[in-house]
C-alpha cells in the first residue's frame, strides 16, 4: 500500500505554471541577444543524390546575409544523429528529402529565407528506395556501402535478437499455432514547440539556448562534436514545449547555430518551421511485424516468434526495436528485428520508442487469437499477463493483474463486451483492451540543495521539464525529504553552468534517476541542520527531526525550533549528492491496462472513441495532477496513431506530402473522450518514495486498445495503421 506523505501524492499545481500560462516563461525561441542573426535551413528536394556543386555567390550578395555554411565549409560530425555511420550536419550524398544542404544566417528571417532560394545546388540523382522490404532486396539501391541493414554496435546492431526457453518445444506443446503480419506507419512526435537553438561565443566559450530534453547530454554531444572541453560549453533550457523524444540530446540545429555563430562572429538563432520539424527531426519508426504464436486451447501462450522489419530512415539515431511482447508471460520466445535504412525521414525516439506500434501488432493478434479460440479477450489478457521478466526474473513490483481487474470493472467489461460485429444499427458499438507499460530503471542522478538562513531552500537540478512537470516533481520530493514546505522551496533547473548533471528527460528516467539524488541531498543537508540545532535544543543530532520547517526532538515534539532560528548563526548549509543505485536480481517495470469503447459509423467509416479507461501501476504517484495529465496525453497520442496519423511519402518522388498539423492529422479535442485514470498505487521498494515511472507507459497500449474495440464493433481486423475511414469502408464494402 501507499505510505503517508505530507506533499507526495497530492494534486499539486505546477510550480512554474504561472509563468508558462502568462507568457513570461523564456523558451529558446524567446531568447533575444544584441546583434543576433536569424538562420534558415536549405534541405534536399531529392531522396538520394550526390551534390555535384554548390554555389552560394548570389546568396552571399543579398544584403543582410552574414554567413552561409554547407558540407564544404562546415564538415562537422553530428554524432548523436547517426550512430552506425558517420553523419555530418550537412551530408554528401544526401539520403532523404529533407537532408540539410546548407544554412544561412542573416539579419532577419525573411532575408535568410530569401537567401536559401539563391543558393544554386547541382545534384546528381541516385536511385532511391523508400520501403524497408524493398531496401533489403539484393538489387536495391545501396544507401551505405555495406548495404541497407543498419548494422552497428551494442543495442544498435542488426538484427536485434532476443531468445529464451525452447521455441520448438513451445510450439509442440501448443494446441494451435497462429501466424500473421501487422503493419504500422511513421508518425511524427508533433510537439507544440518546434526546435529552436540560439548560440553565442564568448572568448572560446560556447553558450547554447536549446530546446533540448537534456542539457547535460546536449552539452556532452556539442563538446564532442566541436572538439571542446565540457567546461567550454554551456547549455541552457529552463522551459520547453515538449519533445516526446525528438528533442533529446544535441540535434543538428544546435551544431548549425554554433557553426553559424562562429562564422558570423555574432549570436545566431536557428528556428525550425513546422515542416522542418516533421521532416528534419524524426518520428516513430514504422514496422512490419510477423508473428507466430503457439497457444493452449484456453489461450495460454506456449511460444512466440517475432520476425520484423523496422524502417529507421536514412540515418540510425536509435534502436529500431519492437518490444510489445514485454507484458506477457511467454515461456518460449524468439525475436529477430531488422532495422533497415531507406531514403525516408529518420525514425527514432518518440515516447516509448519501441512500444505502441509493437503492442498494436501483438495485442491485436492476441485479441484475434482469443476470438478464434472463443476465449473472452479479458480472460486472454489476464491469463497471459507477465509475472516474471523473460520468464525468469521477478519484478521490483508488479500490479498488472490489478490494473486489468480494476480497469475492466470501471469500463463494465462483462456487461459491454459482445461478440465481434454483433452490435446492431449503423453506429456499431465496440469495446477493446490491451496491456502496456515501460521499463523502470535506476541510474545516475545528482542534486544540490542550499538551505538558506531564513529556512527557505533552493534546489538545483539539471532537469529540463519538457512538459512532464519534472520541476514540480523534484520540488515535491525535496520538500518531502527535507521537511520544508513546498512554498518555501525555490528550484533552479536546466543550466549546465549552474545545475548538476541530469540524465535528461527521456526514457521515463527523470524521477527514477534524479529523484533519489534529491532525497540523498536532502538527507545530507538535514544532517548538517541537526548538527547545528542539537546544541540549541539540548539534544543529540540523531534525536532530531525536521517537519513543516520546524526542527524538533523526536521524542518530545514540544522541544522545537523554527529552521530560521536554528540556522541564524550557521549561515547557509549545502547538501549534495550524486547517486547511482542498481538493481540486483530484479527487473523494474511500470504496467498499464487500457480499455476503450468506440462507435463505428459503418456508412461513413468514422470511428468515435466514446469512453476510455486507463489503469496504471506506477508505484507511488508523486504528483497526482501531473501524473493524470501524463496519462491523458499519452492516450491522446495513441488515439491519433490508431485513427488518423501518418507521415505520407510520395512514392514516385520520395517527398513527404503532409508534413504539417493539418494533413498529418494530429487529433483535436473532438477526437478525444474524457480519459478516466486509475492508479493502482503501491510502494515500490526500489523507487524514490516508492515511485516507478509515468511518462512513457500511457501511450503504449492505447493504439491497440482502440484497434481491438474497432474489431469488436465491426468484426473486421485491421492489420495496418492508421485505421482511417477509407480502410474501414473498403473492409466493409469491397
Amino acid at each position, binding site marked *: 500500500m501507499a505510505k503517508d506523505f505530507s506533499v507526495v501524492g497530492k494534486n499539486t499545481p505546477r510550480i512554474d505554471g504561472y509563468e508558462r500560462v502568462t507568457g513570461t516563461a523564456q523558451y529558446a525561441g524567446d531568447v533575444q541577444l544584441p546583434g543576433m542573426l536569424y538562420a534558415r535551413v536549405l534541405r534536399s528536394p531529392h531522396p538520394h543524390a550526390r551534390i555535384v556543386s554548390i554555389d552560394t555567390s548570389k546568396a552571399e550578395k543579398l544584403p543582410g546575409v552574414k554567413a552561409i555554411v554547407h558540407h564544404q565549409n562546415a564538415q562537422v560530425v553530428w554524432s548523436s544523429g547517426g550512430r552506425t555511420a558517420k553523419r555530418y550536419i550537412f551530408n554528401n550524398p544526401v539520403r532523404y528529402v529533407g537532408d540539410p544542404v546548407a544554412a544561412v544566417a542573416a539579419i532577419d528571417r525573411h532575408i535568410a529565407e530569401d537567401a536559401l532560394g539563391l543558393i544554386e545546388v547541382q545534384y546528381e540523382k541516385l536511385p532511391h528506395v523508400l520501403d524497408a522490404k524493398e531496401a533489403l532486396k539484393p538489387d536495391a539501391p545501396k544507401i551505405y556501402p555495406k548495404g541497407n541493414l543498419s548494422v552497428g554496435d551494442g543495442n544498435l546492431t542488426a538484427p536485434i535478437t532476443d531468445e529464451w526457453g525452447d521455441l520448438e518445444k513451445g510450439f509442440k506443446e501448443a494446441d494451435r499455432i497462429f501466424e500473421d503480419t501487422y503493419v504500422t506507419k511513421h508518425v511524427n512526435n508533433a510537439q507544440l514547440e518546434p526546435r529552436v537553438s540560439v548560440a553565442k561565443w564568448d572568448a572560446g566559450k560556447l553558450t547554447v539556448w536549446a530546446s533540448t530534453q537534456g542539457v547535460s547530454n546536449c552539452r556532452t554531444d556539442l563538446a564532442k562534436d566541436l572538439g571542446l572541453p565540457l567546461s567550454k560549453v554551456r547549455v541552457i533550457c529552463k522551459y520547453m514545449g515538449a519533445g516526446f523524444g525528438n528533442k533529446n540530446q544535441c540535434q543538428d540545429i544546435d551544431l548549425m547555430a554554433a557553426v553559424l555563430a562562429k562564422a558570423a562572429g555574432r549570436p545566431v538563432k536557428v528556428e525550425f518551421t513546422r515542416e522542418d520539424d516533421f521532416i528534419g527531426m524524426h518520428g516513430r519508426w514504422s514496422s512490419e511485424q510477423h508473428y507466430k504464436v503457439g497457444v493452449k486451447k484456453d489461450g495460454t501462450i506456449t511460444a512466440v516468434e517475432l520476425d520484423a522489419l523496422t524502417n529507421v530512415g536514412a540515418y540510425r539515431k536509435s534502436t529500431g526495436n519492437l518490444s510489445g511482447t514485454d507484458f506477457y508471460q511467454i515461456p518460449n520466445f524468439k525475436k529477430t528485428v531488422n532495422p533497415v535504412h531507406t531514403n525516408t525521414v529518420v525514425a527514432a525516439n518518440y515516447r516509448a520508442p519501441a512500444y505502441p506500434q509493437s503492442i498494436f501488432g501483438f495485442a491485436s493478434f492476441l485479441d484475434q487469437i482469443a476470438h478464434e479460440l472463443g476465449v473472452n479477450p479479458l480472460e486472454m489478457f489476464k491469463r497471459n499477463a507477465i509475472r516474471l521478466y523473460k520468464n525468469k526474473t521477478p519484478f521490483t513490483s508488479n500490479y498488472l493483474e490489478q490494473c486489468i481487474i480494476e480497469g475492466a470493472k470501471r469500463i463494465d467489461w462483462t456487461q459491454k463486451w459482445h461478440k465481434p460485429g454483433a452490435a446492431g444499427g449503423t453506429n456499431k458499438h465496440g469495446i477493446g483492451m490491451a496491456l502496456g507499460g515501460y521499463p523502470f530503471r535506476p541510474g545516475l542522478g545528482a542534486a544540490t540543495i542550499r538551505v538558506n538562513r531564513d529556512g527557505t531552500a533552493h534546489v538545483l537540478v539539471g532537469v529540463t521539464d519538457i512538459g512532464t512537470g519534472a520541476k514540480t516533481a523534484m520540488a515535491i520530493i525535496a520538500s518531502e525529504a527535507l521537511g520544508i514546505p513546498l512554498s518555501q522551496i525555490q528550484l533552479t533547473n536546466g543550466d549546465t553552468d549552474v545545475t548538476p548533471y541530469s540524465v535528461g528527460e527521456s526514457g521515463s528516467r527523470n524521477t527514477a534517476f534524479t529523484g533519489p539524488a534529491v532525497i540523498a541531498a536532502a538527507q545530507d543537508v538535514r544532517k548538517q541542520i541537526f548538527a547545528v540545532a542539537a546544541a540549541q535544543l539540548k539534544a543529540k543530532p540523531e534525536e532530531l527531526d525536521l517537519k513543516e520547517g520546524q526542527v524538533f526532538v523526536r521524542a518530545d515534539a514540544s522541544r522545537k525550533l523554527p529552521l530560521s532560528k536554528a540556522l541564524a548563526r550557521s549561515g547557509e548549509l549545502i547538501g549534495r549528492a550524486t547517486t547511482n543505485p542498481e538493481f540486483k536480481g530484479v527487473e523494474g517495470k511500470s504496467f498499464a491496462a487500457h480499455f476503450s469503447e468506440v462507435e463505428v459509423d459503418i456508412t461513413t*467509416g468514422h470511428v468515435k472513441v466514446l469512453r476510455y479507461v486507463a489503469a496504471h501501476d506506477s508505484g507511488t504517484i508523486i504528483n497526482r495532477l501531473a501524473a493524470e495529465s501524463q496519462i491523458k496525453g499519452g492516450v491522446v497520442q495513441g488515439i491519433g496513431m490508431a485513427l488518423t496519423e501518418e507521415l505520407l511519402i510520395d512514392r514516385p518522388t520520395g517527398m513527404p506530402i503532409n508534413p504539417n498539423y493539418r494533413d498529418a492529422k494530429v*487529433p483535436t479535442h473532438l*477526437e478525444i473522450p474524457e480519459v478516466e485514470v486509475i492508479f493502482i498505487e503501491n510502494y515500490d521498494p526500489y523507487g524514490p518514495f516508492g515511485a516507478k515511472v509515468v511518462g512513457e507507459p500511457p501511450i503504449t497500449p492505447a493504439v491497440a486498445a482502440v484497434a481491438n474495440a474497432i474489431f469488436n464493433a465491426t468484426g473486421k481486423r485491421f492489420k495496418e495503421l492508421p485505421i482511417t475511414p477509407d480502410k474501414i469502408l473498403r473492409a466493409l464494402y469491397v
Partner: protein
Amino acid sequence: MKSFENIDVKSVKEAVTTLQRLRQQGKTALVVSGGSELLQLMKDRVATPDYLVNLKSIPGLSYIKEEKGGFRIGALTTLSEIEENRAVQEKLLILSAAAGEAASPQIRNSGTIGGNICQRPFCWYFRSASFTCLRKGGQVCYAVAGDNRFHAILGGGPSYIVHPSDLAPALVALDARVRIAGPSGEKTILLEKFFVLPRVDFKKENILAPDEIVTEIQVPYPKPQSKGFYHKVRERLAWDHAIVSVATVVQSRGEICQDARVVLGGVAPIPWRATKAEAFLRGKRIDEATTEKASEIALEGATPLKDNGYKIALAKSLVQRSVLAAA
C-alpha cells in the same frame, strides 16, 4: 515568406483599379480578406505576390441583410458570423451548418465567405512548393501517379483536385448568386456558374479575372415546404476538409418531391451538382428505394483513381442519407 507590400484600399472601386494598375505594371497582386488561407500559401511559398490588396480596409463589406426574397451577405462576413446569425439559422439552415463545419473556430473567426468560395485547392501536391504541378505552371498533375486518396472521382482531368469549400455546396444547393466587381463594373451570376472545371482551365478554380473580386453572395429564400441537410464526412472532426460532403435541399408536397438540389463536395474540382439525380427525384415519393436509385444516378460516371474508390460508396451513402433527411 517572400517580402511583399500591403495596400489598404478604401473602396471596391479602388481595389479593382489598384489590381488593374499593378497588373499593367507587371506586378503580381492578390487580394486578402481574413488571410487564414492566403498567409499559409505565402508562408509555404506557393503564393509569392509582390502586393497584397487588403479588402478589410473597405468599409461596409461585412453584413447579413434580408431584403426582397432573400439574403445578401457581404463578401467580408466571417464564417462565424454566418454560423451564428439567427436569421440564417432559421431560414438557411444548411448554410449555417456548412459554415459551422468548416475548419476550426479560430479560422472561422477570421475566414470570410468571399475567401471561402475562392479558396485554392488543398491538394497536398499543390500546397507543397516542392511540386511544380500542372496548376502551378508545371507539366503534370502529381495526384495521378501519387497518393490520391482524397482526390476527385468526378469531373477530374487533367487536374484532379477537389474543391475544398464547405460553404460552396450549400450555397449552390440554395441557388445562390455571386456579385463580382471588375474593371467594367459589377455583375451578378449564379454561383454554380462561378466554378471552373480543369478541362476548361486547369490553372484556376473559378472565373475571376486577376482584377475582379467577389463583393457579395445573394441567397434566395428556399421555396415553401423545403428542407435542407448538410452532411460532411472527414477523418478528423475539426480542422479537416470533407472526404465527401453533401448539401441537399428538397421541396416536397406530402411525401412527393417537387424539386431537389443535391450538391456534393470533396468529390470534384467544383461543387458537384448531381442534376440527373435531382431530375430523377422530382415527382417521386422519397423513400429508401428512390433515394438509393438517386444515389446511384448521382455517382454515375464516377471514375476512381487508384486510392479513392472508397469515395464512391461513401458518396452514395451520403446522398441517400441526406436526401432522406431533407425530405
